C-alpha cells in the first residue's frame, strides 16, 4: 500500500485532521453531539488508517505496544480517580459539584470534561489494541 501514491498522500493529508476532529468531538461533547467514546473511536480510526497504509510494523513504531497497554488502564484510572477526588473533597463518589473549581455549574462542567477525557483515552487505546491484535497475522 505504501507504493500507492494517491492513497498515501491523501492519508497523510487526512490523518492529522481526523485526529484533531477526534479531540474536537471530545471538547465539544457538552455543546453538541459527541463525547469521549465517539472521539476515542475516531482517534482509533486515524491510527487504523495509518496502519492500513504503512503496515503494522510502522504503526507499532508510532504507537508502541507498551503505550497502548498502559493507556488502556490509565483511562479507567482517570475516571475512577476523579470519583475518589470527589470523595476527598467531601462529596459522594462522582459528585463533581464538590470539587474546588468554582461554583456548582463550573465544577460539574469540569468534572464531566475530566471523565470524558478518561473515557476517550481508554476507548482509543482499547480500539487500537484490538485492531493491532486482530490484524497481525504473524507466522502462525
Amino acid at each position: 500500500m505504501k507504493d500507492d501514491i494517491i492513497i498515501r498522500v491523501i492519508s497523510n493529508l487526512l490523518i492529522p485532521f481526523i485526529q484533531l476532529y477526534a479531540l474536537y468531538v471530545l471538547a465539544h461533547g457538552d455543546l453538541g453531539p459527541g463525547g469521549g467514546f465517539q472521539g476515542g473511536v475516531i482517534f482509533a480510526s486515524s491510527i487504523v488508517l495509518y496502519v492500513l497504509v504503512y503496515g503494522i510494523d510502522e504503526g507499532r513504531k508510532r504507537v508502541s505496544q507498551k503505550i497502548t497497554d498502559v493507556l488502556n488502564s490509565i483511562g479507567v484510572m482517570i475516571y475512577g480517580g476523579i470519583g475518589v477526588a470527589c470523595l476527598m473533597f467531601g462529596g459522594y463518589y462522582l459528585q463533581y459539584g464538590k470539587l474546588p473549581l468554582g461554583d456548582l455549574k463550573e465544577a460539574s462542567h469540569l468534572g464531566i470534561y475530566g471523565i470524558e477525557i478518561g473515557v476517550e483515552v481508554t476507548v482509543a487505546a482499547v480500539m487500537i489494541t484490538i485492531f493491532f491484535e486482530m490484524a497481525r497475522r504473524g507466522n502462525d
Partner: protein
Amino acid sequence: MDIIRTIISGILIATGCFLIVVAAIGVVRFPDFYTRMHPAGKGDTLGQGLVLTGLMVYEGFDLISVKLLIIIIFIFIANPTATHALAKAAYVAGVKPWVKDKGEGK
C-alpha cells in the same frame, strides 16, 4: 433578498438531487464495474457538492456554512480517492473491462 436566496438555494439543491439520481441510475444501468464507477465518482461528488452549496446559500455566511464548506472540501478530497482505491482493487485482481461488441461499436 431572502426570497432570492431561497430560490437560488432551491435551484442548487434541485440540480444536486437530479445529479444524485442520475448517478444512482448510472450505477444500476451501466454494464460493468469500471463504467459504473464513472457515475459514482463524478455525479455523486458534484451532486453532493451542489446540495451542500445550496444549504450554504440558504444559511448565509456564518460558521455553520463554513462547516458545510469543510464537508464539501473533504468530500472532494476523499471521494475520488475511494473511487481510485476501488478501481485499483479491481484492476489488481484482474477484472477485465467490458468492451462493446465490434459489430455495433466503432
